[in-house]
């Protein structure tokens, strides 16, 4: 709900796809000419629009509406697939799951309403403006769905991967301090030191990351299209550190026999 309200509060831009722009231009710009909006020196304009003008405008309106339906339905399908996926994802924390479900459900509701609004539009101008809201009001692909996935990845790392890696680290420390003490060579110690560094990197890179990602709105995205890049970079760095930590653990375990 807030997602739509915030965005609709003046965030819309005037960007239009070439196809839609041409469509609208031919109807809007062409209409005055057909209507007789010619220079003053030209012949007197007709008193009423010609039938040809009405047909052109109606065609343009129909095309905008059809294009809008396609875009909306594609997004609704993606959102409706994401909602049960979020519910089934055990990596996402309950709090984040509630936030994500709320966002996705609100987007479904908003886009469904927007579809009805566009269906009821009677002019090219209003249909064009409403068509833009499909993108600027929701950013389903650019923001909403990545939010779901990146927050899930962050929760998966902090809630599952990092605890398991840390437990393995502790198990190895106990082994090296006890029965496997004789195998605590400098090489093994170097692996254990690297493991500690990698765990710190993972923890640092993912701390608060899910909350950060979930806080972004379509308005934030419209102001900065690279909004998710830093979070994605942190996830990539954490993922690399996980691989290194896992290799360290396997190496020390092999040394222990």
């Amino acid at each position, binding site marked *: 709900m807030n997602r739509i309200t915030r965005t609709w509060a003046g965030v819309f831009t005037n960007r239009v796809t070439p196809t839609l722009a041409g469509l609208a231009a031919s109807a809007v710009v062409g209409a005055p000419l057909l209507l007789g909006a010619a220079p003053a020196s030209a012949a007197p304009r007709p008193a009423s629009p010609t039938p040809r003008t009405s047909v052109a405008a109606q065609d343009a309106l129909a095309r905008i509406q059809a294009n809008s339906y396609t875009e909306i339905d594609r997004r609704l399908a993606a959102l409706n697939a994401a909602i049960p996926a979020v519910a089934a994802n055990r990596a996402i924390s309950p709090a984040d799951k509630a936030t994500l479900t709320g966002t996705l459900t609100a987007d479904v509701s908003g886009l469904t309403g927007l579809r009805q609004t566009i269906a009821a539009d009677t002019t090219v101008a209003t249909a064009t403006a409403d068509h833009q809201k*499909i993108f600027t009001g929701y950013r389903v692909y650019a923001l909403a769905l990545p939010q779901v996935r990146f927050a899930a990845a962050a929760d998966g790392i902090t809630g599952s991967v990092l605890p*398991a890696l840390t*437990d393995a680290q502790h*198990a190895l420390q*106990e082994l090296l301090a006890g*029965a496997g003490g004789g195998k605590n060579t400098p090489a093994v110690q170097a692996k254990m030191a690297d493991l500690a560094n990698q765990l710190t990197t993972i923890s640092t890179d993912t701390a608060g990351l899910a909350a950060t990602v979930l806080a972004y709105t379509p308005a934030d995205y419209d102001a900065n299209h690279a909004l998710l890049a830093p979070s994605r970079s942190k996830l*990539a760095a954490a993922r690399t550190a996980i691989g290194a930590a*896992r290799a360290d653990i396997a190496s020390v375990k092999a040394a222990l026999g």
Partner: protein
Amino acid sequence: MTRLAFGLVAVALVAGCGQAADHGSRKAAPTGVITPAPTSTVPARGAAPAAGTATGTSRVDADLKSVDAALSQVDSDLSAGDSARAQNDDN
């Protein structure tokens, strides 16, 4: 008389054996039996891993399996997020 004497001797012998058996059952283990030294759980270097080491490495194995299972989901999420971002979402 002779039979009576033989019978008494026989009873006395049986009773004596039973007492000896009873007594033996209450005694502690013979001091001659050597109990294994507790130090036997510490392996010599190069020997097979002891039970404690095996338990520890099993725990590590279980942790790594958990990591791999969770990573599979993490990688899937990252890939799907990237795929969504790759789609045109501009008007």
